[in-house]
């Protein structure tokens, strides 16, 4: 039988600049879930039964022992981890997008400042607190950004992962270099 070797877009990514760190995230199974008009409540019940989570509202995410679900745009979310149950598939469109997205985690002091080189999002904790998700741009690359306790998780389309990595690393270098500027005498 044919033997196929899997290879991810960001395999082995582990970059450090100053206090900042960019690493690849293995998400596991990613399922795109979109309720049809009128099936939102049924979907929430099915999700609750299968994964102990309700369908997230705009900009929200939910987490349980089964996995996570991230709002990813108008009438859609990404279920991270579990295989969607038959009940979920009955009341929503479900597409396996495991191979479509590449995920990175940007952590460390100044992570928001690095990301602010690329995205017009308001990243202040008061406006983008832990667990919030947002669709926006990283430079010219569309992405999904999630606020974590120690930084951000960034999902981009697999084919643009290399460009996104390049852009984020560039921003990390700038921010790290600023840490070294001689400070004014107070």
């Amino acid at each position, binding site marked *: 039988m044919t033997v196929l070797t899997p290879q991810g877009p960001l395999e082995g990514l582990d970059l450090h600049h100053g206090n900042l760190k960019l690493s690849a995230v293995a998400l596991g199974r990613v399922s795109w879930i979109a309720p049809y008009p009128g099936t939102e409540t049924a979907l929430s019940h099915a999700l609750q039964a299968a994964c102990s989570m309700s369908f997230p509202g705009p900009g929200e995410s939910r987490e349980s022992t089964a996995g996570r679900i991230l709002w990813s745009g108008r009438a859609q979310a990404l279920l991270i981890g579990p295989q969607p149950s038959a009940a979920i598939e009955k009341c929503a469109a479900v597409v396996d997008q495991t191979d479509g997205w590449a995920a990175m985690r940007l952590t460390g002091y100044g992570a928001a400042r690095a990301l602010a080189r690329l995205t017009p999002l308001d990243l202040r904790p008061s406006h983008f607190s832990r667990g919030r998700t947002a669709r926006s741009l990283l430079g010219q690359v569309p992405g999904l950004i999630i606020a974590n306790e120690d930084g951000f998780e960034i999902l981009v*389309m697999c084919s643009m992962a290399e460009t996104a990595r390049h852009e984020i690393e560039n921003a990390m270098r700038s921010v790290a270099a600023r840490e070294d*500027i001689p400070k004014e005498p107070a």
Partner: protein
Amino acid sequence: MRLPNRGRIDRSVSLPFSFDGRLLTGHPGDTLASALLANGIRLMGRSFKYHRPRGVMTAGSEEPNALMEIGSGATMVPNVRATVQELYEGLEAHSQNHWPSLSADLLALNDLFAPFLGAGFYYKTFMWPRSFWERLYEPAIRHAAGLGRLTTDPDPARHEKAFAHCDLLVIGAGPAGLSAALVAGKAGADVILADESNEPGGRLLTEQEYVDGEPAARWVAATRARLAQMDNVRIMPRTTVTGAYDGGVYGAHERVSEHLAARPRDLPLDCFWRITTRAAVLATGAIERPIAFPENDRPGIMMAGALRSYVNRYGVSPGRKVALFAYNDDAHRTARDMQDAGMEVAGVIDPRSEPPEGDYPVFSEARVVATRGRHGLRQVQVQSKGGATSIAADVLAVSGGWNPSLHLSCHMGGRPQWNETIEAFVPRPGAVPGLVAAGAANGVYDTAGCLAEGKRAAGEALAILGVTAPDWVLPEAESDAGSGRTLWLVEGKGRAWLDFQNDVTTKDVKGAVQEGYDGVEYMKRYTTQGMAPDQGKNSNVNALAILADATGRSIAATGTTIYRPPYAPLPIGVLGAGAQSKGFAPERLTPSHAACLARGAPMVEAGLWYRPSYFPAPGETTWRESCDREVRMVRGAVGICDVSTLGKIELQGPDVGLFLDFVYANGFSKLKPGRVRYGIMLREDGHVMDDGTTARLSENHWVMTTTTAAAGQVMAHLEMVQQCFLPRARVRFTSTTDSWAQFAIAGPRALDVLNTVLDSPTSAERVPFMACGAVRVGGMEARLFRISFSGELAFELAVPTRVGASLWRLLLAQAEGFGGGPYGMEALNVLRIEKGFLTHAEMHGRTTAFDLGLQNMLSRRKDFIGKAASTRPGLRDEGREQLVGLVSRSRETGLSAGAHLFAADAAPERLNDQGYVTSSAWSPTLERHIALGFLRNGRARHGERLRLVDHLRGVDVNCEVCDPVFLDPEGGRMR
């Protein structure tokens, strides 16, 4: 000349630097301007037009004269204001606009011809003869006029852009800005305090004043320390807010490392910020006005406030004997500070009859009527109540009053308003929503007033945020701004400059009025007043006053020109920051990318994607050799092509059929599961938008493919149709382009190759033409489509992206076993042209289904996007240009895309135009040059001979019209 015991410079450290090749030294805390003055250098540049010797006039970003080239080679930056450039070790500065040197500038000859060179001179003089303009006049004028030179090398500097968000942006950190930031910071608002200088304080750093009972600079340090303690306050030094835009967005230019001798590799030179804020305080201070008196432009003549800056902040004096000319008490404050610093005050010249007295000669009812000194001021001629006097002085400080720096308040189209009491324009409240002016920018000049203004403005801004302002007792400070009047002009012999940077004099403005250019915008354009890089910061209002006087109108009635962003000059590099290399456009890479590179395939861009052009085999030296081989390989054996770039949109739901019926021109709802159908989409205006195939995987599960280039456009279109026209339809879709690696396997041996990789072999009968289904490859779920873009027996096999690279290698190895291999975009294009298949070269946005010969696909049984418009008679007129095939009559001369078609005996002119060519190729299969194109009434003209002319490429060849399908019109090979 350096003054002892004064200034905010660190005398323990010496910084060597050079000016026009001379080695000099300065200290940390110096600007280039203050360091030059400390070294006794007053002549810093030549004027734009007359090449007059010029020295520094100001101590801020409004500086018109002291423009320098900084650095050398590729990193050289021209037109840097010496008043803004901080000194660093090894700084290399060059003066500008002279030939051969600054002190012996032969182009100063222009000055002798000044009577002929006034405003309007060029318009009138260089009109005739016409041919002289490009060959003689313009090169000569360009050589003589101008500012700094540009380097033609690529910019090696690292520029950056960034976004910031806050509740309140405070623009300027003088007394008003510091006070506003302190109040808003105490209230808990997110504050950004942006200031142009290297440290906050504004004029509190340059005046000998007390705030809260201590020297002002000490209060600044304490306030700065308090602000630094607040997590919600961010101080941005060296940051000029350059523009106010819609929705509370401000642009700001931060000079990150221009002041550093050693710049770490990753540190940006500068950063352009887009700051989004809910409210802003305009605390930008005021700019001092010059007075237009005869010969007011010699080095040594400078603004009174600037002189105090040099003496008090930088500990430097531009000369030993100082004269002062002002119509207000400021001059007297300058005199006190100069005396305090040990300089001789040679005289205070005041037009008032009873100016304040001092321990120095005071001339009342007096004016400066002339000055002397070739490369720097030596003497000031005074006309006073007591008669004509001549004062020996090497510095003349001038103050004609102050203009609030209100520019940002006008960036959204609002005009400032004239305040008769202070004889100045002030910001119009509400001109920029959410922007509140405070302090000197609002026409309040005394320090106590500025502190109070900052507090008031912060209160107003906090009210916008819905936050109550905290209590804060204002510190005590100087509350007397001094009295004063305005003096715009001293009449007399000799030129009086208004715009120093563009060499505009009072005479030019009066001349404009005489010529009929008496409106403010006309005067500006006729004289170029305010059109230099400094945008007339210290001269526009003076010019308005002269214009008002010359036209007999009031200044308020004369009005101002429009202030536009940027407030201060911005390097182009920082505006383009982030838009180089991958930042210009993302690079989308296919699963086979690395393998294609390894085979030496040159990559071409297709939208954002990179695709292999061809795969050179050993011994092949041209792309045509490789392309021809690949075409023959597909027609004769088998070829593999990565088609992952084609847009894939997965649709689910009970109403997908209904939805597709509406977006496609042809019907889809009756397509059976396991089948694929070709479809065309129209725009609502009846023209073809895109084509592609859609497969019905199961009852409620479909996959649409779009062309690579139109994938984004189609996705936006589908979203619009669904949300705007069918919001209740039970259909959901998402792009899965990135989830699947998809490879075309095409050629007579395609099935053989396919069966080597499938877990269970299949047959052409089980997967008939236009069928689809689930298969397994290496134990993984995969999708098989029997579709063909080459006209051969062909399959497209899709596997999850992560195993795409692996499958590509495997398919190539298998194909090579059957005499095949990979093929690139060039071969793909030849294969499809031979079959008359369409791309966006043909579906270019102006063609209809009728033009493309697809009119029978337009369904009559249902409504669809573009249906009504596509039935317009004009869009299906027989005389329209219709898709045809073209074959060159010559075996040597190819047909070229972009060429136009003419009757064989007609002249190749627009009036005889019959059509055009969209795609062309050498067909190795037919061994002819072939092309696709559009020809008037073309379907009825097969067999006709035409002349094909491409004026751009010099092609002129005869060709024959034929059916657009050159090969296997019945489609037997692919079925």
